[in-house]
């Protein structure tokens, strides 16, 4: 079951904050976040595991609410380089290594 991302698109001015949400109808083991710039491959940002562990870049923060089966990615003091499409990928079990990706959130940061 594909996770649902919101919003579909957002435009920010440099320095503004944004939140991107990812929700699933299934219980989740982990949530991964990736950013893809136009014409490039997706790049790993963060992984959040059931139980509270997480690993990711210093300037990226995210949360994972296991009960609500939701994750949110927080982008603060946005920079032009933050522009791109953000995908969440969900993993439903520890032994299920495959990710199911959402449709993506297109973020545009303007000067």
């Amino acid at each position: 079951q594909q996770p649902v991302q919101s919003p579909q698109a957002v435009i920010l001015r440099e320095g503004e904050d944004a939140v991107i949400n990812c929700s699933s109808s299934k219980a989740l083991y982990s949530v991964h976040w990736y950013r893809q710039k136009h014409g490039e491959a997706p790049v790993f940002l963060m992984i959040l595991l059931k139980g509270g562990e997480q690993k990711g870049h210093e300037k990226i923060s995210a949360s994972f609410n296991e009960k609500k089966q939701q994750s949110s990615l927080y982008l603060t003091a946005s920079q032009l380089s933050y522009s791109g499409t953000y995908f969440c990928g969900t993993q439903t079990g520890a032994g299920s290594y495959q990710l199911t990706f959402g449709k993506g959130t297109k973020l545009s940061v303007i000067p």
Partner: protein
Amino acid sequence: EADIYQTPRYLVIGTGKKITLECSQTMGHDKMYWYQQDPGMELHLIHYSYGVNSTEKGDLSSESTVSRIRTEHFPLTLESARPSHTSQYLCASSELRESYNEQFFGPGTRLTVL
């Protein structure tokens, strides 16, 4: 930095041709994946592998086939290309572990079938 390579980067080919998209990684990762992605759309998993001689079909039905004879190599083959196969194909790899199994993506192959 991830070391995962895909060739060719761009391919334009006629209907009915057989093609093989190459993917190699030098990180010693056991798990490898193939995704199909149309422009501006989400990634769809079409094949994955847990290791040598292991291959599985993904969520999206695909007419392609894959093989995993060596850990570092995971080629994808289309026996007879059709215009509906036009898309971007992304290869990825990850370590075989339950936690922190982030995926590293190759640059992709953009395929156009005329």
